[in-house]
């Protein structure tokens, strides 16, 4: 989706060019290669792995995280991190559950709107007040979770199954679950914005060097604010959809999802230092995480903690490979 043209200088290196291109491709497309490999092994090991039902389960499992990851990709490429997304998801779910009886479309509109507004606040503090993104979104992580718990009275709020709203979590369009359709649209739009618009170019420029981007006269502050607003809005939407899926707004939902989202983005080949990455890589990262989860569920003998171990190990492996490839590229 976001094939960036190779540096003209790097291809002029004679005999090293092919190696360099191989390493670059590995870094950017490694996640997709690993995903294909894992799926192939899984398909050979488990008979029903490739069944339509199981595949849909895998994608559905990753759909809610996927929405968050689209926003997170923008934020991380711009050189920041949004730690508040897990709490935003919880807040979005709670708002949806509380407004659905009043007028059900509100449950779909208000969560992304309000969470987007909070994201806008994050962006303002980061871009205008020049506060560290880490601190601002960490405060968001704590404060928004507190807000969600307080609003919900620390208990999940049930959503009436008869409401048209639950269709957005449980319904289907042409046999495909609605959340999947929505997340696919989000990835396509996100990928196009990142790769084909000037806004996307500015995101890459800021991540590469904020100082240079500013000196070039690019709208650095505005771009960053939009990135954090998008991230918040998508997290709120994910919360609303998840609430529709499970027929409840859970103020404890999305706990530590910010870490999963960061893992997915980094595994997908986006550098945490910003300036490089792709939406397709992030998509592969999300799918990889849910395939691993699915495999561990299928094995059955391993507890839920095995998944944490595998995720942690995976993250380290990817980071080590990235560090190795980066060193090779420099030689």
């Amino acid at each position, binding site marked *: 989706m976001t094939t960036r043209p190779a540096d003209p200088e790097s291809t002029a290196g004679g005999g090293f060019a092919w190696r360099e291109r191989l390493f670059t491709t590995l870094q950017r497309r490694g996640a997709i290669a690993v995903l294909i490999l894992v799926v192939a092994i899984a398909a050979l090991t488990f008979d029903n792995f490739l069944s339509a039902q199981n595949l849909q389960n895998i994608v559905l499992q990753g759909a809610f995280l996927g929405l968050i990851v689209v926003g997170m990709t923008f934020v991380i490429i711009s050189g920041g*991190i949004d730690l508040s997304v897990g709490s935003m998801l919880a807040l979005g779910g709670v708002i949806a559950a509380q407004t659905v009886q009043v007028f059900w479309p509100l449950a779909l509109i208000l969560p992304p709107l309000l969470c987007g507004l909070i994201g806008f606040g994050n962006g303002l*503090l980061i871009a205008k*007040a*020049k*506060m*560290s993104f*880490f*601190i*601002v979104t*960490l*405060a*968001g*992580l*704590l*404060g*928004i*979770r*507190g*807000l969600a*718990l*307080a609003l919900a009275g*620390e208990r999940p709020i049930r959503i009436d199954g008869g409401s048209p709203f639950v269709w957005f979590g449980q319904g289907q369009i042409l046999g495909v679950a609605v959340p999947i359709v929505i997340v696919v649209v989000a990835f396509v739009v996100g990928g196009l914005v990142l790769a084909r618009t000037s806004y996307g170019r500015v995101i890459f420029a800021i991540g590469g060097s904020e100082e240079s981007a500013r000196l070039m006269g690019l709208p650095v502050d505005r771009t960053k604010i939009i990135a954090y607003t998008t991230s918040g809005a998508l997290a709120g939407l994910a919360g609303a959809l998840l609430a529709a899926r499970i027929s409840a707004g859970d103020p404890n939902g999305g706990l530590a999802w910010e*870490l999963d989202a*960061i*893992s997915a983005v*980094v595994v997908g080949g986006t550098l*945490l*230092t910003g300036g490089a990455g792709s939406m397709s890589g992030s998509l592969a990262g999300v799918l990889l995480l849910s395939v691993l989860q699915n495999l561990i569920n299928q094995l059955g003998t391993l*507890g839920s*903690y*095995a*998944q*944490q*171990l*595998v*995720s*942690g*190990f995976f*993250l*380290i492996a990817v*980071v*080590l490979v990235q*560090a190795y490839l980066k060193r090779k590229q420099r030689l």
Partner: protein
Amino acid sequence: MDRGATAKGPSDLSTVTSWVRGRGVYLAFVVLVLFNLIITPNFASVVTVTTLLITVSPIVLVSLGVALAIGTEGIDLSVGSVMALASAFLPLYLGYGWPVAVLVVLLVGALAGLVNGSLVAFVGVQPIIATLALLVGGRGLAQIFAGGQSLPITDPGILWLGQGRLFGVPAPVIVAVVAVIVMAFLVNRTTFGRYVVAVGGNRSASYLSGHPVRRTLLAVYVISALLAALAGIIATARLGASDPSNIGLLIELSAITAVVVGGTPLSGGKVKIMGTVMGALLIQLITNTFISNDLPFTWAQVLTAVIILVAVYIQKGRGSA
């Protein structure tokens, strides 16, 4: 006279502002204590104060290590999972006596720190990612070693560490105070402390000055993990059972908050040990204030978030000036 007074006015004001900026956390703490003295019933009692100090001890231990990591312009997110690892390993080796068990646990902690430190110092992975991996994977590992269950601890030596007293002072508080003194000495009075600040201030300048940058970074993450392992032992001892799924959960957030509110900038180059201790006390006191006044605890979280933002916003002014 008059002119002298007017000329002195603004400068007085700016001294006051900068004093407040540097010691905002102390001021906030004093205000909160006064507030509690007025509204919280039985606040000025020995029980209340010891409870506060005992609860805050593991957070202080962990925060000291995180402060060191942040001082090098890094961060250590893995502390909570290292606590879980410590909790999982502790009962496994108690058969050989408590000193052996403690030693093994500290070794496991040191090993975790070596992994973090090597990734940061030698591979060049960003600290947030290197320690994120252990945060995610470490707890899973702890649960596998513990067989997914919580084991009771009956060894009197270990239990004393969590529940005992020496001259009326609770053992966890003694451990925390000793750790604070050692760390304050290490940071303010040793070459290692100078290196930490130098590496955090400007890594390449420090490297070019011939400082052992990599060794310093490695040591910082090992120390942080050792302190986390110690905190894990104390938390387990207090509970009287190992609990790898809950011990140290989300403590990295409290620790980072304590460090930042205490005046250590995330951009590195400065480590405030006493500020960190006050930051940890302040956060715990906020929580206790809400609990002891029967206020919904969740609003304490919101208030903590606001305090973080305000503290950092105020300190930013000083940093850029």
